């Protein structure tokens, strides 16, 4: 049966752990071209160079070829073709569709229109499951476990989809959460209710210093202008947290800083040289995790 990856909730705990295990295999041996002869579509209806390059590199490393576009402005969509018709057309040519689209729910819809597996590479502010899986992989690689960790999420917890998906995924693993955000960007009620329903602890604070020294993972996020409808609200909160090397004097030895990148002012350059910085390696991990996702969905690394 065809399986797609649209939302992190589409994967069970077993499947999540299996993807992470498979990613480890690809990190050790990244040249495995068992998808030779396959063609995979990379449809970026909105540009995202970082995500697109990571996915397309993963496809190439596995030996498959890529067709697609990196921007919808020259496609038939811009001439008014429906999403359904574009997906139906591409579906005839390929073994898998990787897509990014500004409308929320577009990837779920595409997966129901297509006969081949669809991987969601971001649908507006909704889901971006490969990002979540690479975050989990980075946590596992740096801490040796996913169980019983304290994760401090910082910045835009209201609109930041990466924090929402990571929270959903980590709910499998007895995590303690700290939510560090200004009043305007606090974690939405629905996610706190979700944690309550699972009996998971969380603390809320507006101070970055308050729980800095007790966490295992510091998950920093950028305040994204494009998610705001009110420009005044954006101006008020855009530079609310800025981490520098001095602030790290008393953190736990095993503490690692993650960030989905690109960063703006929330992590200063001097943090890069500390042993706590992990965000560049985190981005590299995306390649192995995406190789694992593609292989699994095409039946090459089945769950045993």
């Amino acid at each position, binding site marked *: 049966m065809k399986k797609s990856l649209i*939302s992190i909730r589409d994967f069970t705990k077993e499947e999540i752990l299996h993807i992470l295990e498979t990613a480890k295999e690809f990190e050790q041996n990244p040249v495995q071209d068992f998808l030779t002869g396959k063609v995979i579509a990379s449809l970026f209806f909105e540009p995202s160079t970082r995500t697109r390059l990571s996915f397309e590199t993963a496809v190439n490393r596995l030996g498959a070829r890529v067709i697609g576009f990196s921007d919808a402005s020259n496609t038939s969509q811009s001439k008014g073709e*429906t*999403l*359904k018709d574009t997906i139906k057309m591409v579906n005839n040519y390929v073994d898998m569709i990787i897509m990014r*689209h*500004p*409308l*929320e*729910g*577009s990837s*779920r*819809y595409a997966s129901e229109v297509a006969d081949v597996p669809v991987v969601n590479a971001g*649908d*507006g*502010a*909704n*889901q971006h499951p490969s990002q979540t899986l690479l975050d989990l992989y980075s946590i596992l690689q740096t801490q040796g476990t996913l169980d019983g960790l304290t994760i401090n999420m910082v910045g835009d917890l209201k609109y930041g989809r990466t924090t929402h998906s990571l929270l959903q995924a980590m709910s499998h693993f007895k995590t303690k959460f700290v939510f560090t955000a200004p009043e305007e960007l606090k974690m939405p009620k*629905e996610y706190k209710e979700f944690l309550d329903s699972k009996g998971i602890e969380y603390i809320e604070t507006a101070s970055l210093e308050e729980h800095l020294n007790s966490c295992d993972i510091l998950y920093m996020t950028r305040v994204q202008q494009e998610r705001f409808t009110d420009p005044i609200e954006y101006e008020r909160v855009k530079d609310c947290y800025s981490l520098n090397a001095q602030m790290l004097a008393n953190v736990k030895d095993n503490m690692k800083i993650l960030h989905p990148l690109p960063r703006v002012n929330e992590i200063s350059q001097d943090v890069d040289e500390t042993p706590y910085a992990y965000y560049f390696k985190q981005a590299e991990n995306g390649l192995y995790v995406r190789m694992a996702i593609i292989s699994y969905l095409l039946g090459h690394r089945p769950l045993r």
Partner: protein
Amino acid sequence: MSQKELKVSALENGTVLDHIPAENVYKALEILDLKDIESQITIGINLVSKQHGKKGIIKIADKFFEDDELNKLSLIAPDATVNVIKDFKVVEKKKLEIPREIRGIGRCMNPKCVTNHQPIETRFSTAKKGDEISLLCHFCEKTTDSKGLF
């Protein structure tokens, strides 16, 4: 003829929907897709109800509905009752149930939802929270409350 008789004036065969909030009677007609029906429809609006202030009532002659069709009304008329009439007698009386999933009625409240930009039938799963029914969009995964649906 007493006033009581007038309100439920004789229907030989058909369906009577009672206890619809007065302001939602037209929405109910829309949801049940009764625009092109040939048989007689009698509508009462702003009738006095002991329980709900002003209520509405819809009587449709010679028409019987599947439960699935009627249950769609639970979103706008949670307390409605359905009377099935045969030979001038009420042969069945039922309450509405909230369907697990509803398709093709209402709009997602999320302006960036794909269903608001492409010709796609909406699809929600329902959850009851106190008196409110909340609807989780199958596509964008955002929650719409039943008041925002129309």
